């Protein structure tokens, strides 16, 4: 056989991108139970969730590396190669931040003051909004490629990316409120707890930031 046609076609990365996102989303879905276990002081459940998050993050890594390996140079793609790689990086950073939160919680046995619980869970909620929109936007990439980047599909995804931006902005506000609340309690809790809670809040904010950056990259992919 001396055919060349088979070698001409490479697997397009779009489906795998969504597979990666689904894994990242699964990882993010553990955030809420983790935080609930944390604020209610259920150490056993916390440990269990941390294990699950770490496993899912690892699985996402495997998909990510697989996509990278199948994107050699000298490919003619309907999207920019570096846009895809950056998109993947940011998406991966989302899962990384979730894992970092888990590690911070694991680091030190401590309890969360009950006054803070409401704000903290609200922050988690807002962060999850960004992830939900991101997942929706990513799931549309396949249709975008199928339509060969039609305006209709582009607008659909653009709208979802705007939603990520809005949720990220709202998460920022809640994060500030949460921090103020924490400092209002500075006489009731020990300094080290404050430091770690601050870090957890920061990391929650990072999840939303990375989701937003991923959305930005998606904009780049659309508008080649």
């Amino acid at each position, binding site marked *: 056989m*001396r055919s*060349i046609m088979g070698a001409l076609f*490479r697997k397009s*990365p779009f489906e795998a991108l969504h597979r990666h996102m689904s894994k990242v989303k699964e990882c993010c879905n553990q955030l809420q139970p983790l935080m609930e276990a944390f604020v209610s002081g259920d150490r056993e459940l916390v440990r269990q969730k941390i294990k699950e998050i770490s496993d899912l993050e690892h699985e996402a890594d495997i998909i990510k590396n697989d996509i990278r390996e199948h994107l050699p140079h000298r*490919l003619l793609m309907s999207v920019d190669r570096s846009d895809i790689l950056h998109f993947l990086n940011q998406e991966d950073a989302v899962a990384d931040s979730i894992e970092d939160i888990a590690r911070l919680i694991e680091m030190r046995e401590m309890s969360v003051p009950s006054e803070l619980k409401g704000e903290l869970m609200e922050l988690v909620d807002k962060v999850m909004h960004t992830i939900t929109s991101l997942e929706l936007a990513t799931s549309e990439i396949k249709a975008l490629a*199928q339509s*060969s980047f039609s305006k209709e599909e582009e607008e659909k995804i653009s709208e979802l990316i705007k939603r990520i931006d809005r949720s990220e902005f709202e998460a920022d506000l809640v994060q500030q409120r949460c921090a103020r609340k924490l400092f209002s309690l500075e006489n009731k809790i020990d300094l080290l707890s404050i430091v770690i809670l601050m870090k957890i809040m920061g990391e929650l904010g990072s999840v939303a930031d990375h989701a937003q950056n991923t959305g930005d990259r998606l904009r780049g992919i659309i508008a080649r």
Partner: protein
Amino acid sequence: MIINPLLVMAILAAFYMAVNIGANDVANSMGTSVGSGALTLKKAVIVAGVCNFVGAVLLGVYVTDTIRKGIINPAAFAPNPNLLIYGMMAVLLGAGAWVSIATYLKLPVSTTHSIVGALIGFGLLGAGIPGINWKVIGTIILSWLISPIAGAGISYLLFTVIKRKILDTPSPLKAAKRVGPFFVSLVLFVIGLAVVYGVSKRLLGSLHFSYVLGIAVAIAIIGGLASYVFLRRYTLNGNDEYEEMEELSKPLQILSASYEALAQGANDVANSVGPIAAILAVMETQKVTMQVPVPIWVLALGGVGLVIGISTWGYRVMETIGKKITEITPTRGFAAEFGAATVVIVCSRLGMPVSTTHASVGSVVGVGMARGIGAINLGVIRRIGISWLVTLPISAGLTMVIYKVLTALLPHL
């Protein structure tokens, strides 16, 4: 005509070449249809077999003429016509040997390039530098460069039209039902034009071109109306709209696949029977001028070889390729196949031997440039270029050696 052992050997060598083309090259052009699911393997074999045969018989004569007398000036052999017979034998054996080696080594060489290289080799040795029609060689090499680029251009434009008119609308499925008949008419028009032209030239004596054009237009209109009725009746299943639109486009891709197979038969048959046509003409007339037209049975012989190649080994290659290119969809496949087929059929009429595979690769890249295909490995182009460059000298060299051996062994008369 006495049965000549030399002629039998030449026919066997030509037949081998045709089988090889059927087994390997046809799969390259049918792969996009098998991969997209427009054709099952069985149907692909039938479409490829029938259309390659028809193309070879009706339209194969132009490139065959170039191979038998356009590249090497036969007048150089007027003092000893037998040398031309040995030379054409050597061409078949040399090109056949190189194609076999390349097939074994899995190098993507073109049978077209091999046969042209072989002709240059024989020409240099047998007729010397002035005996070769360098202008024709130059034009052929130019056509090798232009054909993939032109294929890319046509496919790019066609896919851009599909994108504007169908994909980029609020309802791609509805748009496809509206625009589809025009595409059906377009392909039927070109297929009709090619076939009716071929029939009129080969079987009816020359029909005036306006009649040919009229019949082709009639076929296009009837086909367009038929597809309009069919599409109107089609009701959607409520699945994903893009997927349904692609599903609906499968018959269109079957048409473009037929078109490409027709073009391939018209062009590639010469790679096997071109030298035979030369040998026969010299044997029959004992002159080298080759005024007699290429007999239709010679083209049919090549066509049969193609069909045997397709049905014995080609379907396996098609299966392998089809599995590798599932990324292609009927709309993309249609755009790619139409571009490649148009280039190859125009080149066939102009008597230019081109590589159907290279035209197909160019056309796929064209669709890719219109953002139609997820990922295309451009490394393939480099591999094609390399086998391009090695094919000419190696095929020429092998032919020279074989020609030397033949002329030493066989009587000069």
